[in-house]
C-alpha cells in the first residue's frame, strides 16, 4: 500500500539490511556446525576409545550401523518408548484440546494452567519429584515408569499444539453436515477428523521427538533400563564410539525424511 510513497533507501539502511541477512546466514552456519562435526566423525577412525580427535577417514563404522550390542539395544528401547508414549500422549492431549476449544465449562482457566505448568517446570524438578513418588510408594523404576514420565511431559505439548492449531476452525461445518442428514459418526469421520488430523500428526511427531531425546527426566526414572541418550551418557566415561555418530546420522536422516513426508502430506491435504 504505502511502498510507493517510501523515501529511497539510504546507504546506511542498505548496509543494515545486508548486515542483518549476513548475520542470519552466519547464524545458520552456527546451527549446523556441530551437525557437520557429528556426520564427519562418523567416518573417523579413532585411536583409542574416544572419538574426539580426527585421525583418518574410513567407511568401517558404516558397515554395520545396527551391530548387536548395548547401543543398538538402547536405540530399540528409545524407539519403543517414543512410539508408545507419542500414541498415548497424542490421544490424551487431543481429547483435552478438543474439550478446551469446543466446549464452554467451568474451570477452563485452571486446566489451562495445569497444562502449562509441566512445560514451565524445570525437567530436573519433574524428574526428581516423580522419582520421589515412585520411591515412596515402593514402585520399581523401569520401562513402565519411563513411559509414565514421557507421556506426562508429551501430553501438555500435544494439548497446547493441537489447541493452537484448531482454534480458528469453522465448526459450523459439523452442524451443516448433520443438517444434511449425516450421522454423528459420519460427521466426525468425514468432517471433524480431516479438519484436525494435520494438527494431531504434528503434535504426535513433536511428542516422538521430545521423547526420543529426553535425558534428564528419564535419568531419574529409568531404574536399570537404558534409553539411547542414557547409554551414551553412561558409556561416555569410558568410551565414545563412532557408532554413536553413525546412529545419530541415521536418526537425523530419518527425521528429515519424516519431516519432508509431513510437508508433502500437508501440501496434499491443503490442496483441496
Amino acid at each position, binding site marked *: 500500500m504505502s511502498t510507493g510513497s517510501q523515501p529511497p533507501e539510504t546507504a546506511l539502511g542498505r548496509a543494515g539490511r545486508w548486515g542483518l*541477512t549476513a548475520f542470519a546466514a552466519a547464524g545458520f552456519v552456527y546451527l549446523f556446525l556441530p551437525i557437520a562435526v557429528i556426520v564427519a566423525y562418523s567416518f573417523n577412525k579413532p585411536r583409542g576409545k574416544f572419538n574426539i580427535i580426527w585421525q583418518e577417514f574410513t567407511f568401517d563404522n558404516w558397515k554395520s550401523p545396527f551391530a548387536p550390542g548395548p547401543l543398538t539395544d538402547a536405540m530399540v528401547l528409545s524407539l519403543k518408548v517414543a512410539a508408545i508414549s507419542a500414541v498415548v500422549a497424542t490421544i490424551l492431549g487431543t481429547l483435552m484440546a478438543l474439550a478446551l476449544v469446543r466446549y464452554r465449562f467451568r474451570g477452563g482457566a485452571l486446566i489451562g494452567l*495445569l497444562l502449562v505448568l509441566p512445560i*514451565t517446570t524445570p525437567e530436573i524438578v519433574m524428574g526428581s519429584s516423580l522419582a520421589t513418588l515412585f520411591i515412596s510408594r515402593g514402585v520399581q523404576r523401569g520401562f513402565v515408569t519411563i513411559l509414565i514420565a514421557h507421556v506426562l511431559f508429551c501430553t501438555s505439548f500435544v494439548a497446547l499444539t493441537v489447541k493452537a492449531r484448531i482454534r480458528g476452525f469453522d465448526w459450523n461445518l459439523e452442524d451443516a453436515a448433520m443438517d444434511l442428514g449425516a450421522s454423528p459418526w459420519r460427521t466426525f469421520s468425514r468432517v471433524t477428523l480431516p479438519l484436525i488430523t494435520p494438527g494431531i500428526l504434528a503434535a504426535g511427531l513433536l511428542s516422538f521427538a521430545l521423547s526420543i531425546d529426553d535425558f534428564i527426566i528419564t535419568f531419574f526414572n529409568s531404574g536399570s533400563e537404558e534409553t539411547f541418550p542414557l547409554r551414551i551418557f553412561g558409556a561416555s566415561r569410558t568410551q565414545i564410539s563412532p557408532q554413536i555418530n553413525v546412529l545419530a546420522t541415521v536418526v*537425523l536422516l530419518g527425521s528429515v525424511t519424516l519431516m519432508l513426508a509431513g510437508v508433502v502430506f500437508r501440501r496434499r491435504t491443503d490442496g483441496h
Partner: protein
Amino acid sequence: MTSRGGEDRSKRSAGIVPYGLLSPGILWLLLFFLVPLVTLGRTSLSVKASRFDPNDIRLTWELSNYTNAIGDYSEQFLRSFAYAGIATVACILIGYPIAYVIAFRGGRYRNVLLGLVVVPFFTSFLIRTLAWVNVLSDKGPVVSAIEYLQFSGLLESLGIMSDGRLLSTHTAVIGGLTYNFLPFMILPIYVSLEKIDLGLADAAKDLYNNGWQAFRKVVLPLSLPGLFAGSLLTFIPASGDFINAKFLGGPRNTMIGSVIQDRFLVQGDLPTAAALSFMLMIIMTIGTLIYARMLGTDDLI
C-alpha cells in the same frame, strides 16, 4: 477466520461431555505431576531414618534441609541463574535476527528456512553437546585458530579462556546452553513476527522515516509475546540443566542441576535433593510471574 463472537457461539455448553474428554489427561497430570510435587515437598521436610536405606525417610518438618541447602549451595544456585541468564540474552541476540530475516525476508522459502532451524535438533541433545566437545577441545579447530591468530592472551584477560583452554570454562558451558536452547527462542519469536501485518511495518517506516525507529516503536512491541515465551523456554530448562556443565565445564562450573542429580542419584540424600528441587521450582514460578508483569504480558499464561 471466525470473529470472536462467532467463535464463542460455536462453543457448546454440553454438560458432562467436556469433562469426559478431559478426565484421562487431567487424571494423568494430577497423579504424575501434582501428587509428585506434594511428595517432593514432604520429602524436603523429612530426615533420613536409616543410614543404609536411602529410601527410608520420615517427615519431621525439618526446615534445616532448606537452610543447609541454601548455605551449602547458594553458589551453584547463583551460577545457574547467571549462566542461564547470559545464555538467554545470547539466544535473543542470535535468535531474533534469524527469526526476523526468516519472517520478513524469507519469502516463499520461509518454511524451508524454519525447517532448517529445527533439523539440527533432530540429533540427540547429548550427541550435540559431545560434538561441541570435539569443536572446542584443546587441539580442536577453535583453539588452534585462536592460537594461530595469537588471540589467547586477549581472550584470557577477558575471562573467555583459561589456561589456554576453552573446555572446562564457563564460556564453553554458556556456549553449550545457548546452542542447545536456541530453537526454543527462534520459533516463538518467529511466530509472533509472522503475525505482524507487513503493511503496518511499512506504514511505520513512512511515519518515522527511519527503519530503526519503525522497528523499535512498532515491530519490537508486537513481538514481545514471542520474546517472552522464548525467554521462558530458554531460561527455565537452561537453569535446571546439568549436561552442558558436565561435558563442557570443569569442577568450578557445576550448576544446581548437577548438585540435585548428585545428591539424589549418587548419594541417595533425598531430603536435600528435594529441598533444592523445590526451591528451584518456587524461584522459577515467582520469576516467571515477575517477568510477565514487567513485559506486560500477564494474559499470556
